[in-house]
């Protein structure tokens, strides 16, 4: 029966010979070190973002303690400044809602807005609330601080009065401090989970097992979280929803990110810069280099061009953004449109070229 085996073996042999010959004679190889790219993301972008957030929140807490002992407009202004620093630091963390951040519900706990001012006032008056409960998310976190430090009075003198002469002054201060403690505990937990000294999630993130592109892989999680953040929480949350794109064309300026503090556009710019940093990998290997290695350099260039155009449009917006929307929302809608084009390129073209899977389900390739 030997004559029948021969074709089988020759086919199989041919298969391996050709496969091996290609290794000694490189034809065209992507030869991209994905692990090195992930290391750049983990060590130079993600972990520093969490650590910066942690120190910003520590300063916020120090400022709040000082305000507690010395209730002056000076200390109030200092507290307002540290809040802004925390909110800016948050912009660099928010695209990374996977792993530790996801398990402590970091985004929902820290940045659910618009904040429910009635609920906050009710909590302060009754003292009957649980800061950590899911139902209290829209009365806690950074947006609640925004209201407590900028929205409880028209001027800083009036705001100060809410913490000194107002009948609920002590309750209000307690609520403020408890909210900051709550923010700090969440940030500390997520940060230490990432750190080598803590839960060492970074070790898992950079491990060889997770260097692929399948669902549980580090790159898969990063990109999915990144794309989802960009679409829902930057494009829609910070720009589209306030401009009325999602409410039958009726603007809702009250829904901007820092309505009372009035620096919404500044936060959006900071967040967009982080989005860009994630694409370029900062000064080192990033997704753009990965695309180039996969012969999709023109796609990388086009994404970069679109990012630049979006940034220009975004930087042209004026704070307070809520006022800009009320006066002339066209530039805001322009930003939305520009951001939309980035979504298509990143969500469809880029993930497709990188071979990223977005689901745990079985798949037979469409």
């Amino acid at each position, binding site marked *: *029966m030997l004559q*029948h085996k021969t074709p*089988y073996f020759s086919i*199989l042999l041919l*298969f391996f010979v*050709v*496969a091996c010959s*290609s*290794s000694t004679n*490189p*034809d*065209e*190889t*992507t*030869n*991209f070190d*994905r*692990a090195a790219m992930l290391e750049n993301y983990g060590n130079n972008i993600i972990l520093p973002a969490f650590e910066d957030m942690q120190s910003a929140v520590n300063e916020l807490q120090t400022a709040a303690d000082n305000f507690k002992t010395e209730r002056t407009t000076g200390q109030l202004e200092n507290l307002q400044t540290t809040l802004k620093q925390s909110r800016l630091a948050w912009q660099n963390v928010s695209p990374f809602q996977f792993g530790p951040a996801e398990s402590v519900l970091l985004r929902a706990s820290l940045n659910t807005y618009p904040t429910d001012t009635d609920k906050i006032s009710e909590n302060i008056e009754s003292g009957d609330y649980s800061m950590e409960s899911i139902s209290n998310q829209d009365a806690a976190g950074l947006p609640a601080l925004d209201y407590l430090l900028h929205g409880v009075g028209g001027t800083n003198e009036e705001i100060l009065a809410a913490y000194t002469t107002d009948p609920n002054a002590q309750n209000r201060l307690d609520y403020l401090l408890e909210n900051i403690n709550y923010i700090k505990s969440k940030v500390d937990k997520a940060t230490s989970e990432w750190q080598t000294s803590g839960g060492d999630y970074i070790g898992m993130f950079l491990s*060889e097992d997770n*260097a*692929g*592109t*399948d*669902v549980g892989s580090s790159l898969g999680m990063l990109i*999915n979280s990144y794309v989802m953040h960009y679409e*829902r929480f930057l494009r*829609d949350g910070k720009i589209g929803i306030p401009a*009325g*794109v*999602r*409410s*039958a*064309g009726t603007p809702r300026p009250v829904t901007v990110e820092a309505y009372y503090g009035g620096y919404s556009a500044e936060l959006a710019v900071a967040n967009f810069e982080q989005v860009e940093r994630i694409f370029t990998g900062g000064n080192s290997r990033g997704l753009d280099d990965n695309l180039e290695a*996969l*012969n*999709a350099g*023109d*796609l990388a260039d086009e994404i970069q061009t679109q990012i630049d155009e979006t940034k220009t449009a975004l930087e042209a917006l004026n704070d307070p953004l809520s006022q800009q929307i009320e006066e002339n929302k066209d530039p805001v809608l322009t930003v939305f449109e520009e951001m*939309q084009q980035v*979504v*298509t390129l990143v*969500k*469809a*073209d880029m*993930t*497709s*070229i*990188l*071979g*990223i*899977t*977005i*689901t*745990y*389900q*079985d*798949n*037979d*390739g*469409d």
Partner: protein
Amino acid sequence: MIPEAIKKHISGQVSIAPLAVFRFLFGFIMLVSVLRFAANGWIYELYVKPDYFFTFYGFDWVTPLGETGMYLLFLGMGLAAISIMLGYYYRLGITFFFLAFTYVELIDKTNYLNHYYFVSIISFLLTFVPANRYFSLDVLRNPSLKREKVPAWTINIFKLQLGLVYFFAGAAKLHPDWLLNAMPMRIWLPANADLPIIGSLLEYTSTAYIFSWAGALYDLTIAFFLLWKPTRIFAYLTVIIFHLMTYALFQIGMFPFIMILSTLIFFSADFHQKIIITLSKLANHLPFNFRTSSSCRKEEWKLNKNGTTLIAGILGIHFILQLLLPLRFALYPGNLFWTEQGYRFSWRVMLMEKAGHTTFTVTNPKTNKQWQVQNYNYLTPNQEKMMATQPDMILQFAHFLEEEYQKQGITDVKVTAESYVTLNGRRSQPMVNPNINLTKKERGFAHKEWILPFNENQQNWFRNLQE
């Protein structure tokens, strides 16, 4: 009428062993599949959690049965799989399994998989054959059921079905993108470059070409090599290597194992008898045994005349449909991968890397106000991803949006879709005509003239991708 040579393969009496083993293995792998599905939390994830489901045209009445209902249905499927495996009240088990599995499959297009379709077909065919008349608990309960011989068709329909699946899967690969551009392998293989040993090889373009051509060759020829005794054992080794490779490289689920076990049916009756003896020895440790050696009163299983006519008719229609369905794409103009008209139920497996992004714009004609829809408020990420590349799902979702706004009192809205889709590494381009009001377009099997052409001339298929 029918020549003797062919008749032999239909009504000639052959050993029942291959059929009994096939039944046992199918039940076993289905039990594993159901358990895996439940353990992954997919019952909840796919059939309880979503608010909206993309039904199949003509099957809009198929809806999830609620949380308890879905869990019970899967429990029933698991029990039915055991019933099939052990041949215990087999007729009831296989009928329930076929109906329940197909029902679940029809709930949401998003989850369509060729391998689910394959399971539906195999369980359908299994309802017609006496697979429980040997090596089963039914025979133990009622020894008069036992048979040692069955007509050849009861085994050959499975070989034919498997052959069709492989052959059409291979024919679908005879496509310029697959053969000349090595797409989508050129995207999928480098994505696995982190795998040990073979990882670095996957980065070479030539590897993608080898995989593409070898895959096409395998699918087109494997059934013939399995049929022919001299090559059978080598062909089966290739089956194992091929499917384990796809298992290692792609997120393809149970399919490789289902195929590895199913293709055993091509082996001889003696081989299957050995399997049964081995399994029976294992079963001796159980409180009951299959006592396969006991003789039976009637050796052969035969149908009466009416039953023969009925089953012959049903199977005839089934196989004619099996031959025609994969070819129906030829009736539609345009590029099949782009329009996906005639793509499903055709064994087109792992043929394209398609991704997209669709934005729906709603216009209220009374106020002339326009707004965009947040797809993610209604759909899971996976539903959104699947919809973005499939025109029929885009249309369904547009109709759903129309109903949603009707509920809110906004009647007669206009819904348009801007959809950008990338196919096999090409740059994304619009797939749906963005000026068409989709609420005015009917669902159905007619050609969707509102899909924009993939390219002006088909020559572009032959151009090399960006160098």
